Every structure is written in structure tokens, then in C-alpha cells.
């Protein structure tokens, strides 16, 4: 397990470095204007020298201990990014655990009800949840709440912005919808795979109860397969976070990261497409660390759960 963790750390370092090199691509453009100042054409030329210069410009203050730089209010980017990340963690961490627990529970339920009429509540709903985009659920929840508000049944909810508990609760629900169905599907197929295995037949022949079979044997072994997907779950959470924070004006890390990473629509000079590299680097650092942590959790969990890894020398 130790070497795997080391490998993961190295992978993170490599991926983060490549992201930084991409981020520091030179972005100055030459804009050609007509006689009355109107836009005619834009020219862009990549040169290795300019790229190296921009990398040097970025790293010199970093080595001098000035960090990623400061924003217009003189706040260091790294602490701004960390503050916003904390806001987003209020959504990500609960959504992560809720989607894992409800997802696995839903998968077990789907497995238990796979034959007969109850299939409609089990497999069929998972199926709908997977094929219908979660923005549909979000819009419907919002519209229902608005309708209830108009009818005066539930009033005074503040669904937009950050900092109010009801917005956090709703955003956590929005975030967990898709990963939950995704995990339910994974759990279901993991259980179906285990179902035919020899050790299950042996256990059944020896007269183990079906409860013990499902929860002790199959789920325990299935969980190892499920934990392989934690990285995917976190990636889904983060990319959905982005749309949800933007959609509900929840000003967290993903909201600001998007603000920094998307270029302006208005281009009026050679510097219009420049990005705030310091801010992006700070946010990217926290996002990649989060994904790295998810990977580490997944490795450790596998080490504990997988039967042949528990006893092995890893």
C-alpha cells in the first residue's frame, strides 16, 4: 500500500506541474485595428522563449516567499482560495458521504428487489436517475419551492447565495443526486457479480442466512469494487459543484475558480485574454489536493476491505 500511496503522490505532482505549464502559456495577442479603431484581426504567435519567461515570472515570487500573489484588495490568493474552499467543502463533504451511503443503500435495495413488481421502485428509478440529467431535478425542485412560496405554504426560504443553511442543504441535495444513482448502479453490478461466485454458493450450501450472505459476504467484497470509483465520484462532485454554485450564486471555490479561469467576452487590447495565473494556481492547488485525498482514501479503504490485500504484504 505504501508504494501505491507514493505513486499517487508522484502522479499528483506530475499532473499539477503539467497543469501549471499549460496555465503559463503566453497569452498576449496582437490586435489589428482599422482606421477608426474597429477590430480587423488578431494574431497570436507562440514562442518557447515567451513561455519560459512567463514560467520564470511566476516562480520568482513563489521562491522568494511571496506566494501566489494578492488580489485587488491585497488579500493573498492562497488564503482567499482556502476561505472559498472551506465554503465549498460544506457542500462537498456532506454530499460525498450522503451519495456514498444512500448510493450503496439504493444499490442493495435494487439488488434485493431485482425480481418481481418492486423492481419499479428499485432498478427502474436508478435507471431514470442515471439517464435524466440532474439539472432537470434541480430545476423541478426549485420550481416546486417557488410554487409553494407563491401559495404561501413554505415561505422565507433563501435559495440563492452562500451562508444560509437552507441554501447549503439544498445544494448538498442537488450535488448528491447524480453520484448517488451512479453508485447505486455500481453497487448493483458489484453485487450481481458476487452473486455467482463459488464462495457464495458454498456459504449458501452451508446454510448461511440470506441477510448474512448479502451484508457480510457480498457487500464486503463488493465494497472493494465500489471504492475503486471514489475518484470518479469526487470528479463528478467537483464538476457538478461548478454548475450548481454558478446556478445558485453560491460563491464558493468553484464559483471563483470559474470566474478566474474563463476569459472575458470583451477583447479590446493585447492583454484581454490574460488570466490571473496566481489565483488559478491557488484554486487548482486545492482542487487537485482534494482529488488526491479522495484517491488516498480509496487506496486505504481498498487495503482494509479487499480480502487478498488485507492479508497480503501490500
Amino acid at each position, binding site marked *: 500500500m505504501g508504494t501505491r500511496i507514493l505513486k499517487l503522490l508522484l502522479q499528483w505532482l506530475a*499532473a499539477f506541474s503539467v497543469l501549471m505549464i499549460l496555465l503559463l502559456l503566453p497569452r498576449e495577442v496582437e490586435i489589428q485595428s482599422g482606421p477608426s479603431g*474597429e477590430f480587423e484581426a488578431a494574431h*497570436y504567435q507562440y514562442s518557447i522563449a515567451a513561455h519560459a519567461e512567463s514560467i520564470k515570472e511566476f516562480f520568482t515570487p513563489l521562491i522568494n516567499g511571496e506566494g501566489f500573489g494578492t488580489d485587488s484588495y491585497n488579500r493573498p490568493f492562497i488564503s482567499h482560495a482556502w476561505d472559498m474552499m472551506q465554503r465549498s467543502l460544506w457542500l462537498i463533504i456532506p454530499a460525498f458521504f450522503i451519495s456514498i451511503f444512500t448510493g450503496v443503500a439504493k444499490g442493495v435495495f435494487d439488488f434485493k428487489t431485482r425480481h418481481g413488481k418492486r423492481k419499479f421502485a428499485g432498478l427502474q428509478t436508478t435507471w431514470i436517475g442515471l439517464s435524466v440529467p440532474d439539472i432537470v431535478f434541480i430545476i423541478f425542485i426549485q420550481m416546486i419551492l417557488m410554487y409553494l412560496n407563491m401559495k404561501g405554504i413554505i415561505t422565507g426560504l433563501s435559495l440563492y447565495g452562500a451562508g444560509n443553511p437552507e441554501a447549503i442543504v439544498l445544494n448538498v441535495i442537488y450535488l448528491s443526486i447524480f453520484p448517488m444513482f451512479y453508485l447505486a448502479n455500481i453497487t448493483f453490478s458489484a453485487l450481481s457479480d458476487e452473486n455467482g461466485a463459488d464462495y457464495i454458493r458454498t456459504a449458501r450450501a452451508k446454510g448461511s442466512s440470506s441477510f448474512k450472505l448479502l451484508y457480510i459476504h457480498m457487500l464486503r467484497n463488493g465494497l472493494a469494487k465500489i471504492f475503486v470509483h471514489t*475518484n470518479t465520484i469526487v*470528479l463528478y462532485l467537483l*464538476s457538478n459543484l461548478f454548475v450548481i454554485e454558478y446556478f445558485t450564486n453560491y460563491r464558493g471555490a468553484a464559483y471563483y475558480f470559474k470566474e478566474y479561469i*474563463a476569459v472575458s467576452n470583451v*477583447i*479590446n*487590447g493585447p492583454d484581454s485574454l490574460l488570466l490571473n495565473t496566481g489565483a488559478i494556481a491557488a484554486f487548482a492547488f486545492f482542487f487537485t489536493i482534494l482529488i488526491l485525498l479522495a484517491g488516498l482514501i480509496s487506496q486505504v479503504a481498498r487495503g482494509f476491505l479487499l480480502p487478498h490485500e488485507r492479508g497480503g504484504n501490500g
Partner: protein
Amino acid sequence: MNKHLTIGGLMMAFLLVLTFLGPLLPVIDNSISQEGVRFTDEGIEVPPFPPSAEDPLGSDREGRDILSLIVAGAQETLLVILAIVLIRFAVSAVLGIGSYYFKTIRAVLSIWSQLFSFMPSIFIVIFFAGLPFVVFSEHRQIWMIVIIAAVEVGRTGDMIKTSMDYSAKKSFFEAGIVSGCSQWTLFKNYFWPDLRLTIVTNFISDMGRTLFLIAQFAIIGVYLQNAFWSIRGGGVETVNNSFIWPTLLQNIHRDVFTAEWVVLSTVGIITFTMVTFYLLSSGIRKYYQNKYHQSS
């Protein structure tokens, strides 16, 4: 009967009819004309107009008929997602299958998939979308298609590689080796039947996922295609100039309160398409499973 395949096929047929025969319908305004104010008996109406006999699904903020926009955008939307997924699967098939045979290709694939696994693909695409040569390129749409295809090549390539490794571990494969099949026969008769199923079903379901990804971009204001509008005092503004469905969501923040028909019809048609792909994918999987495993 294979319910998923039947329903999915019917829905796909409906989509194709909408795409190719839709423009011929009398209710469709193929010129996508804008409309300012409307004078009615009760007074003056300004866009967005709610659904009426004139605009069955209402109109957007520029007075353009939503139903016509959907029909006009159908062909481009389907082509764009088809192009993205085609490029993605062509590259990942080469990498995924190649990585079984060659160490170098295996290394390339693993670097590719690890590099992009530390950042959600949505961020990477936004980043590339803002690079100067992509913003100003005359072929921005092609660039964007290639970028969106590329960021997920690692994932699909890994999937193909896993399918190959899985087959290679089965005892029927050993039988093939023992009976002295050539590499080509091994590939054609032992790998390909399973691999084909993986590729075809994932190809179709990836089309649904890609449509959703593009919709997410539109919500946050990143478009596949740009036009440049001059602004007073110099400079330009980049604006969206394509009709693909997701771009109808660009005002979702305001529309969800005041013009919910725009959001509902766009999300409706996107959902319909995604469900179609999902049904087809799972239907095809069932079809092959029934064909090869008669017992189940």
C-alpha cells in the same frame, strides 16, 4: 421482447424525423426571425412571449420561436456530439487496443488518463476554450470538438484496455492460444466480439453524456462557436452564433423565473435525447447478451 431497444429506436426515429423533416413543417420558421413587440387586444406584449398558437413553445428574449430554434439546431447538435464521440473513440480504440500489444502505447494511455484525472474535465475544457488561438481561430468549433474529445480519451481508452485484459484472462482465450491462432485471428475471434459490445454501447451512452457536458458549458457561458461583435470605442465582444440546443440555456438565471418555457423546452429536448441514447445503449447490450447467452 427487448423493450429498451424498441422504445429507444422509436425515440431515435422521432429525433431523426424532427431533424430532417422538421424544417418542412408549416409551424417552423426556418429563417428564425426576431420579433420586437406584439400588439394585442389587451395592449402591448414584449418578448419573451409565452407559448401560444403562434409560438407553440413560446419565444426567447429576442422573440425567436423556441420550437423553430430547436428544429434548426437539431442537425448541428447531433453532428457536434457525434463528431466529439467519434474522435474520442477513434483515438481511444487505437490507444486502448494498442496498449495490450505495445508498452509505449500503454505508457501514453496511462499518462493521458492520469493527467486529466486530477482535474474535472469541465475546468480543462474552459481553460482551453480561452486560449488565444482557440478564441480567434476561424475553426473554433473544430478546436472545441477536438478538445472535448481529447480530455476524456484517457477514460474511454482505459475502458477498452480493461475489456481486453478481462478477455485475455478468460479460459476460452487460453484455448485460442493453445490451438495456435495467429495474433489476428485471436483479435478477430476472441477479443473483438466482447470489445465491439463495449465500444458500441459506450459510444452511444457517451453521446448522451457529451450533450450534457455541452449544456453545462452553455449554462456558464462557454460556447463552441463565436462571432465577434465590434464595440464602440474599439475592441470586440465574442458572442455565440450557433443554434445548438444548449445555447438556449445561456440566460437560464433569468429565464428560470420569468420565461420558464425556454428552460423547460430546452431541458426537455436535451433530456429526451439523453434518454434516447441511454435506452439504445442498454437495449443493444441486452440484444447481444440474449444472442450469445441463450440461458439468461
